[in-house]
């Protein structure tokens, strides 16, 4: 009786399924960790173990979350066996807590499709090889490293700082790179001594490296991996200071450890568990950052001067907001950037903005020895600009920036001839991917956002009800800004009249002055404008006793009583991301947009005593744009 056999089979299957679901509902979630060192190493392994224990406590203890771990797995083959054992035993999530375990993990993950694996630090989930049950995670260690570096740079008295590294790879190199950038940003005169022990656990070697650095004059040290306990001991004996990472290292040396960057893995585990319940077994890359709470700072007993603490807090805030971008990579040899721009690096506008971005990154990376900047300014002639770009590419510059929309055609002609050179073009969104180009980055500014904020303030500040806009040409970055500005005025003062006039030039200062005076004659008491020409217009509105709103660069320097606020283009994070990409082998193909939300655009006030309600309206506009409750159109109806 064939049919009854099928029926019996169906019943059995259904029963099994029922048992399965009921068991799943009651059984604890089982997580296994395989780690290279011990859970008390006060660094790498301890941090993840503690994170998992925190989640266990939240969920109600071992009955809800079962934790198993294997520590001290410096032997990759042994670790591989441990991972397979846990998977075999039916653990839900098996964590391979070490970049070195990756090869083994990819060999076994396919055999256990129901098991979730997690691997760090890594960004590869194996999705392109067909794996769907591997999570990857990494800590943006350069962020906390940067903050530690800022404090170290300010605290050193000898101006010599030592770094005790394990091997130049993974999490350690990120931390070390970020730390150096923080030191240089806070104290360009400081010297950084960097030495690797070649080991993660050789405490004696770390102590020796530390003592050598102390002999060389270092009074502040940092380092990473479980080996560092030896180094902390050495710097304590010498009366110096230590900065920790991965876990809070202050309990044993409370007066020596100033601060520690602490990883908090709990949010990641929470999300992995939630994802599994939704049937997602892998494929997600987690990043521990300052912004998402994956990193926080623990301070020891050392009496940190208030200004140093303030600088650290500012650095944290800047990194969270995207204003400061610690690079993941540091160039091993001098990195050469060339930029071609239409006006002067001191134009208080367009060209100055990119040049300032470059010099900020240069300081962060350690000065002219790390980053060379070559520039050709005043290239209003596109043909001459094309020649300059070709020269730079020919000379082997790593990154050639065409800082002007008008240079695009030349750039696209030139880029295929120099496939090893990376190019950047702004403001633009086209990386030439359609033409098969892979070595061009594009960048632009969402200038309409700051334009809106400026417009809101202008609408509130005008007494005559007339606001003037001195535009260069109705295109590109200037048009975005002006469109945003009009929307901002309309939002804060519906009855205000915005009069717009274009000069047809970017650099004709006298014509900008005349345009401004004409608008003043027409009753305008608040003006704004774009491009390097505006200095003439600012002077005119100052003479008339009115207010000015700037864009591109901070224009209050010369007219502090007239410039209320400027939308400042902060290109440093964009340039930093490009350099990170280039150093990791990606020469182009990405388009960047600086916005208020990602810290690329900032509103900087001048010396005008702005009424509190105007500032509040500006802050509300900024917050609204960032959270999306205010959308600023790039184009106005009819354009």
């Amino acid at each position, binding site marked *: 009786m064939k049919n009854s056999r099928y029926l019996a089979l169906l019943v059995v299957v259904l029963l099994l399924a029922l048992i399965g679901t009921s068991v799943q509902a009651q059984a604890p979630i089982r997580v296994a960790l395989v780690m290279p060192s011990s859970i008390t190493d006060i660094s790498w392994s301890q941090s993840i173990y503690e994170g998992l224990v925190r989640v266990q406590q939240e969920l109600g203890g071992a009955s809800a979350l079962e934790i198993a771990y294997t520590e001290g797995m410096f032997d990759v083959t042994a670790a591989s066996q441990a991972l397979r054992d846990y998977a075999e035993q039916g653990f839900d999530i098996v964590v391979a807590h070490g970049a070195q375990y990756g090869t083994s993990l990819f060999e076994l993950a396919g055999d256990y499709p129901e098991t979730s694996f997690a691997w760090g630090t890594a960004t590869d989930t194996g999705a392109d090889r067909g794996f769907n049950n591997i999570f990857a995670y990494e800590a943006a260690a350069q962020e906390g490293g940067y903050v530690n570096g800022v404090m170290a740079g300010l605290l050193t008295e000898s101006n010599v700082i030592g770094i005790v590294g394990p091997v130049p790879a993974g999490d350690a190199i990120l931390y070390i790179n970020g730390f150096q950038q923080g030191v240089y940003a806070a104290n360009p005169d400081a010297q950084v001594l960097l030495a690797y022990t070649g080991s993660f656990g050789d405490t004696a070697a770390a102590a020796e490296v530390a003592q050598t650095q102390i002999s060389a004059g270092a009074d502040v040290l940092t380092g990473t991996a479980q080996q560092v306990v030896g180094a902390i001991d050495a710097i304590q004996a010498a009366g110096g200071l230590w900065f920790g990472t991965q876990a809070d290292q202050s309990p044993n040396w409370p007066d020596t450890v100033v601060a520690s960057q602490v990883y908090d893995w709990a949010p990641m585990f929470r999300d992995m568990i939630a994802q599994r319940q939704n049937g997602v077994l892998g494929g997600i890359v987690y990043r521990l950052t300052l912004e998402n709470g994956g990193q926080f700072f623990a301070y020891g007993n050392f009496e940190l001067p208030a200004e140093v603490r303030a600088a650290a807090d500012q650095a944290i805030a800047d990194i969270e907001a995207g204003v400061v971008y610690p690079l993941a990579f540091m160039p091993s040899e001098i990195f050469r950037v060339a930029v071609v721009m239409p*006006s*002067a690096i*001191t*134009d*208080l506008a367009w060209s100055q903005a990119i040049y300032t971005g470059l010099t900020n990154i240069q300081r962060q990376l350690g000065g002219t020895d790390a980053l060379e900047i070559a520039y050709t300014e*005043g290239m*209003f002639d596109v043909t001459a600009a094309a020649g300059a770009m070709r020269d730079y590419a020919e000379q082997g510059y790593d990154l050639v920036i065409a800082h002007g929309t008008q240079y695009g055609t030349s750039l696209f002609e030139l880029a295929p001839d120099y496939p090893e050179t990376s190019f950047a073009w702004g403001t633009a969104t086209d990386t030439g991917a359609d033409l098969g180009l892979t070595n061009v980055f594009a960048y632009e500014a969402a200038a309409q956002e700051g334009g809106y904020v400026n417009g809101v303030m202008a609408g509130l500040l005008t007494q005559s009800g007339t606001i*003037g806009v001195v*535009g260069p*040409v*109705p295109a590109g970055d200037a048009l975005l800004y002006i469109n945003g500005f009009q929307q901002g005025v309309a939002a804060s003062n519906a009855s205000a009249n915005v*009069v*717009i*006039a*274009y*000069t*047809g*030039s970017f*650099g*004709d*200062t*006298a*014509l900008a*002055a*005349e*345009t401004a*005076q*004409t*608008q003043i*004659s*027409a*009753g305008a008491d608040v003006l704004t404008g774009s491009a*390097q*020409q505006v*200095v*003439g217009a600012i*002077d*005119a509105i100052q*003479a008339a006793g009115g207010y000015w709103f700037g864009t591109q660069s901070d224009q209050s320097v*010369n*007219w502090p009583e007239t410039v209320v606020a400027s939308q400042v283009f902060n290109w440093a994070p964009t340039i930093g991301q490009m350099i990170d990409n280039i150093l990791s082998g990606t020469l182009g193909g990405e388009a960047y947009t600086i916005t208020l939300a990602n810290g690329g655009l900032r509103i900087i006030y001048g010396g005008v005593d702005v009424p509190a309600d105007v500032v509040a309206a500006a802050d509300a506009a900024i917050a609204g744009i960032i959270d999306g409750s205010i959308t600023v159109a790039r184009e106005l109806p009819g354009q």
Partner: protein
Amino acid sequence: MNFGEILVEALTLTLLYATPYLYSALGELFVQRSGVLNLGVEGMMLMGAFTAIFAIAPAGLGAAPLMGVLLAAAVGALMGLAAAVVNVTLQAEQGISGIGFSLFGLGLSSLLFKVLAGGVIVASGFEPIHIPLLSDMPIIGRIFFQQNLMVYAAFALVPISAWVINRTKWGLQIRAVGQNPAAADTMGVNVVRVRYTTLLLGGALAGIAGASLSIALTGIFQENMTEGRGFIAVALVYFGGWSPWRVMLGALLFSIANNLQIWVQILEVQIGGQPIPPNLLIMVPYILTIAVLIFARQRKRLEPAALTKPFQRGEN
């Protein structure tokens, strides 16, 4: 604002912004009347513009505004002297050498700006002077008698130039040298010396024109801030048919066309319900200039016959 008020404001600004054209074009007029084409006005203006702002800015030398103008004139004259050596003594091709001087002035003023100023420097130069009684008159007072010293001086220069050229012995020599240098030479006029002096004067006035841009109109200096105004000045001399009065008319026409197009932009004047594209408006003064040049051919009456022709004794 009603149309009348707009017109008053437009005319006021027209006079103000015609100032650099007046100085530079009148200077060029002297040079051309003596038979030399100086295309280096642009470069001389730039040097004057930088010199003036650097002289008077607190971040620079901190001198009085008039001193700034004098120094700008001196620097312009120095460049005029160099142009005289090249064009008159060495008899270079005047069109080419003039462009050379323009580029030289652009480069040198940019370099000095970078080295000496380092970035944008600000200076308050000439404030408007309200002439007693006259400035209180309705309309006329606002347009003509509330301007700054540089504006008054520029307009005073028009009749002075006309008088010098038409009524003085030196003016006669200039005209003679420009029309027929060989004949003038025969009559005992030192052709070389006359051309040197006109180039010195032209250079000085170009320098002052630059100074008016930087310290009377804007209060700042920027690289290449003349933006071709020196070449417009040369065109205005042709446009004005080598007569100071007509050069002034040309400067005013160009200036008012430019100011009115700004008004058209800010008043959002529409044609057939459509706003006029700004790029089109910005071209208007230039189109107007070309159109007037085409329809004013009979003005060639005063064109110096020896213009651009180097003089060498025994030739011709």
